[in-house]
């Protein structure tokens, strides 16, 4: 692929789409082999490599889903890609951003999830401790709209096999998550709807009261939303949470 030029956001968005598409194919069994190293073109243009690393960074632990959820073999090269992506795009220093902002907390929680995924595939590397400030009730004080906004950014955490204070909060406050899904659907924000649906899917099988089935949301998104690999990835992983493998 020739180098794409343009502002980083547009270039990286394309790379994220490409990587997400590869991950979805790996999860649905459409592709036999999945290697993160393949996503960073061998001997390729530095700009393309940067974009590839950015894509891995943006997807975070979701880039490791084929290894965690679908048993693709994780290699040392794959570990290198992850480590390099983190080094290249570090978590912002707290003094670089608004103190009121959840940014650092969100980044640390995502990195924790990535660390857990690496442990899961037998390649721990650097440890990412669970942030102390993300204890029980974290982010709840500003109401459900902001709290679900935070959860949406943390959708990589919502996978089968992970548990934490935040997961416990999500289970305890499933109604708020469902309100977030409802709001996202009505605002025509399919990505947020899918990300929050993942949290519901990961929050246990007991039906909610009033009921809020997750699969119809996912099916609606598949049928109605613009076909977008990143959206498809969230939906695919949500279905893993629901115990399903089919993705049509």
């Amino acid at each position: 692929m020739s180098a794409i030029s343009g502002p980083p956001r547009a270039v990286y968005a394309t790379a994220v789409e490409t990587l997400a598409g590869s991950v979805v194919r790996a999860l649905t069994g459409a592709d036999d082999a999945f290697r993160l190293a393949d996503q960073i073109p061998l001997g390729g243009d530095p700009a393309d490599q940067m974009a590839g690393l950015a894509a891995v960074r943006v997807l975070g632990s979701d880039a490791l889903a084929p290894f965690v959820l679908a048993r693709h073999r994780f290699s040392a090269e794959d570990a290198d890609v992850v480590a390099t992506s983190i080094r290249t795009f570090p978590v912002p220093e707290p003094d670089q951003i608004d103190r009121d902002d959840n940014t650092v907390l969100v980044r640390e929680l995502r990195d924790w999830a990535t660390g857990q995924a690496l442990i899961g595939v037998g390649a721990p590397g650097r440890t990412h401790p669970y942030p102390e400030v993300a204890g029980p009730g974290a982010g709840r004080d500003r109401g459900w709209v902001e709290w679900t906004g935070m959860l949406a950014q943390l959708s990589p955490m919502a996978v089968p096999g992970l548990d934490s204070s935040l997961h416990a909060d999500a289970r305890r406050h499933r109604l708020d998550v469902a309100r977030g899904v409802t709001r996202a659907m009505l605002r025509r924000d399919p990505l947020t709807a899918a990300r929050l649906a993942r949290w519901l899917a990961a929050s246990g099988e007991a039906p909610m009261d009033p009921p809020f089935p997750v699969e119809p949301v996912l099916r609606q998104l598949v049928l109605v939303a613009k076909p977008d690999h990143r959206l498809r990835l969230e939906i695919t992983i949500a279905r893993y949470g629901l115990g399903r493998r089919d993705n049509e």
Partner: protein
Amino acid sequence: MSDVTPSWVATAHQIAVRAWSWLDDAREHFALPAGVSLDRLQPNDDVQPLGELAIAVSVATCGGALGSLATQTIPALAEHAWAQLRNGDLLYELACNHTIDTYPLETYAWFVRAGHRNSQLDELLKHLSSLRAARVPEVLPNRALAVYNAERLLGLPSRADPVALTARTWLGGCPEPWRTDFFTLYMMTHTVFHLTDWGVRPDCLPAHLQAYLHAWLPAWLEVYLEAGQWDLVGELLIVDLCLAESVHYPDAWDALARAQQPDGLLPARPGRVPRDPATAFHDHYHPTIVAAIAGSLALSQRFAA
């Protein structure tokens, strides 16, 4: 129960007082179009505003929170609207001419609620509602509940089953809360208004629907607050007031108060309010009536407690 008055009470009071002030000032616009013959009257444009004013008056005059507004200004508005309808004779003529439409019955019920009666109309409506045809009107499910409540307010025997009628409404199906839209939510609000008789009979809304609304009102409020759809926001707040346990969404009340103009007009949606008074009335009388109802109902419940 705390002695501290929650902030939404003061907000509701301000919204109500301002809205009533605007409605009183706009009295001349609550009128039938001059020189329009009976068969050319438009139910929605011409008669409906008068009926809606009557609902608002009937809500505001239960309970004493609005002081002299409630004893003088507000009832006078219902009298004015009733006079526009020739003390009900016009509704009688409409019912004679358009016997299938239910809106004369529905409109009259609001005036009865505000303390006005017309004996000729009483007799005619009693006869019409006794017919077999009255059992099978081809109307939207929430309208069937409007008819049911209207007959009840008039003391007419109804053979309809409110449980069955409710089951046919969108709300009654407890659907996916994300599978809805602007119009559908209005159908929901009206279902609640008719079932509970504007909050007078909250227990007529079954428990599972109370739970459904507690679950999803916050999401709908948030969406339509963000979109600046104040008319619908107002109706959603009235729905909350019709529940057995109202939540009283202070942020929504505050947003409504900020959206309301100083003269009391509540704009229906974002965008400039027309300068021409007749156009402004036409476009925004409805949300202002909603504001009057919401504020007045909130106050009457607070002070009844």
